[in-house]
């Protein structure tokens, strides 16, 4: 069985002539913990395809089943229903130690009784690689994560960030086909976390390994991923590039989980040439691209990102409103503007060189909404 794993790893290098293969195919996976009525359904019918050499992120709030899905991919949990395949091979029956998949654990799980170098060498050793090759791999991996100087230390002698790097090096050392990362940055402080984002992305490019990255942090997901699957309560809500997810959220959950969003409940009055005329509950009217399947009379939710609205001095153009409250965040300023709807519209203003915030609470303003900024959500 051992040489078979080695073949896995060697067959790794991406072939540019071929179309991008599917690395992982998750088809209709259901995962239940426990039996009968007391069972917890952690995953309800999850399907997704992760491409070869992709930085793929599972994003969702805590408890939505991200870790469970990752553990299924790693081979620590069996699916209740559905199938998982790795490069076309069904891996349902393959135990964790025979999958060419490595994991960076949430709490690193470094072997405390081994040095950093021994930790990194562990995987290649179990694969029966030659001693010389292992030494080279360890040196290369430690260099890759900038931990050469710490090779002889033990995990307890390292800071959180350093342990994180060792965990990364250890998981990369066997050169797996797929690297699974379970919230690897969550234990680091903000500055380090930001620095690591760029490094992880760069590492993924350099190694050409498919990354499946789990996080509940939308910024992390947006900044690193090629594609993101947004999950909620054991279901995939949307799969797409960061831009698609942010700009064209599939539903209200995705829109509100990623970034800030305004929602206005409205009804479609009429549709002409793909453009819908909508009227809000309080009688404001908007014209925007109709969602597919939308018909006159439908109740819809209109969605608007705070930074896509421009505040101007009161005038004919735009929506009239009054600033209710202001939240100064340094880089940006969040205004809550009363536009006569049930809830005020949140508008983000940038802190510009021309003197911070030109508006104050109580000011009457006019809100200019960009042509394509207002979106219709069906759900």
């Amino acid at each position, binding site marked *: 069985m051992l040489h078979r794993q080695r073949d896995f790893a060697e067959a790794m290098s991406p072939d540019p002539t071929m179309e991008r293969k599917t690395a992982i195919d998750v088809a209709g996976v259901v995962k239940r913990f426990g039996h009968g009525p007391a069972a917890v359904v952690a995953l309800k019918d999850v399907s997704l395809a992760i491409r070869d050499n992709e930085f793929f992120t599972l994003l969702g709030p805590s408890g939505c089943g991200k870790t469970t899905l990752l553990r299924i991919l790693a081979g620590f949990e069996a699916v209740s229903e559905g199938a998982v395949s790795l490069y076309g091979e069904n891996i349902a029956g393959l135990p964790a130690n025979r999958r060419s998949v490595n994991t960076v654990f949430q709490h690193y*799980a470094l072997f*405390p009784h081994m040095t950093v170098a021994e930790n990194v060498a562990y995987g290649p050793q179990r694969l029966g690689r030659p001693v010389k090759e292992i030494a080279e791999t360890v040196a290369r991996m430690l260099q890759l994560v900038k931990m050469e100087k710490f090779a002889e230390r033990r995990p*307890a002698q390292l800071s959180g960030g350093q342990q994180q790097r060792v965990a990364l090096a250890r998981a990369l050392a*066997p050169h797996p086909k797929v690297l699974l990362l379970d919230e690897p940055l969550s234990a680091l402080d903000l500055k380090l976390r930001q620095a690591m984002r760029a490094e992880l992305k760069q590492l993924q490019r350099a190694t050409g390994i498919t990354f499946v990255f789990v996080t509940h942090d939308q910024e992390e997901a947006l900044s690193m991923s090629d594609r993101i699957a947004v999950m909620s309560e054991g279901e995939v809500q949307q799969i797409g590039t960061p831009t698609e997810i942010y700009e064209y959220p599939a539903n209200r959950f995705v829109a509100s989980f990623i970034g800030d969003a305004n929602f206005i409940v409205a009804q479609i009055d009429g549709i002409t040439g793909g453009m819908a005329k909508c009227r809000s509950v309080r009688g404001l009217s908007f014209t925007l691209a109709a969602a597919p399947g939308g018909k006159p009379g439908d109740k819809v939710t209109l969605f608007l990102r705070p930074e896509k609205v421009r505040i101007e001095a009161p005038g004919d153009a735009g929506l009239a409103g009054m600033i209710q409250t202001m939240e100064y965040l340094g880089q940006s300023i969040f205004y809550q503007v009363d536009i006569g709807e049930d809830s005020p519209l949140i508008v983000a203003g940038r802190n510009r060189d021309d003197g911070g915030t030109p508006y104050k609470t109580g000011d009457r303003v006019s809100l200019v909404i960009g042509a394509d900024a207002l979106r219709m959500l069906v759900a």
Partner: protein
Amino acid sequence: MIASARTPALRRLLGLLPALVVIGLFMLVPVAIMALYSFLEANPFGGVVWRFSPEAYVQFLFERDLADNLVFQSGYLIIILRSLGLAVLATILCLIVGFPIAYFIARQPARLRNIWIYLITIPFWTNQLVRTFAWIIILGRNGTIELPFRWLGLLGADDTLGLMYSDFAIVIGLIYAFIPIMVLPIYASLEKLDFRLVEASADLYSSTFETFRRVIIPLAKPGIVAGSILVFIPCLGAFIQPDLLGGGKKLMLGSLVQFQFATARNWPFGAAVAMILLTFVVLCLLWYAQAARRAGAQSGALAHA
């Protein structure tokens, strides 16, 4: 200045005094008495004659012939070696049986673990003599093991499997008596083991066996060492098992001590045997302390980094 520096030290000493008195009174004094007696002359009617004599130690290796010459005799040396051999064997077997038990308990849900630990310690609440007698019923002639053989006609009326009164019976008795004190320290170190490391090892292409060898055993080592020492020491000094299950013919160090005091009435020799036993125990503990210090130095270095 000096007074203020001295006061806390003095106070510390005062605080430790009760413990020191207890240790001194109940440990050092008896050992000192034992050491003293081992260098006295035996009184044939029991007790000692207050005259210095190395006779007890000489007796270990030599016998006096009729002409009062010292002649080497290996009887007692063999008992020492037998004792060491049986104690080592019993300890190893205890480890082999005890480790899986400890592992099993450590993998139970937290709620069940205490129940299992309680069950493991239950035999401890029963008298050791009674528990050892139970083994006579199991291993003995027409005992629990022999009877089925007899019924099946595999064993003639006068035949016996000869399980009793053998080294085998002694070792069984020792394992049974001391398995809990092997299980408990191993459990204590396995319970602290982060089982995510086991997953990490599997993730890195380890078979179950490799994971066991390279992750679980090394991390359970403190418990394994502690358990082995805790079992080895009482095994070496055991006398109930050799007496009841070994038939009193296959002596061990412990039974030799007991025999000298209770039957042979040679107190100095009994005390000398006890001193030799104590030497083995102390050597064991020194080795353990050394190992612990090495482990401590390692983790100490960790703490300073």
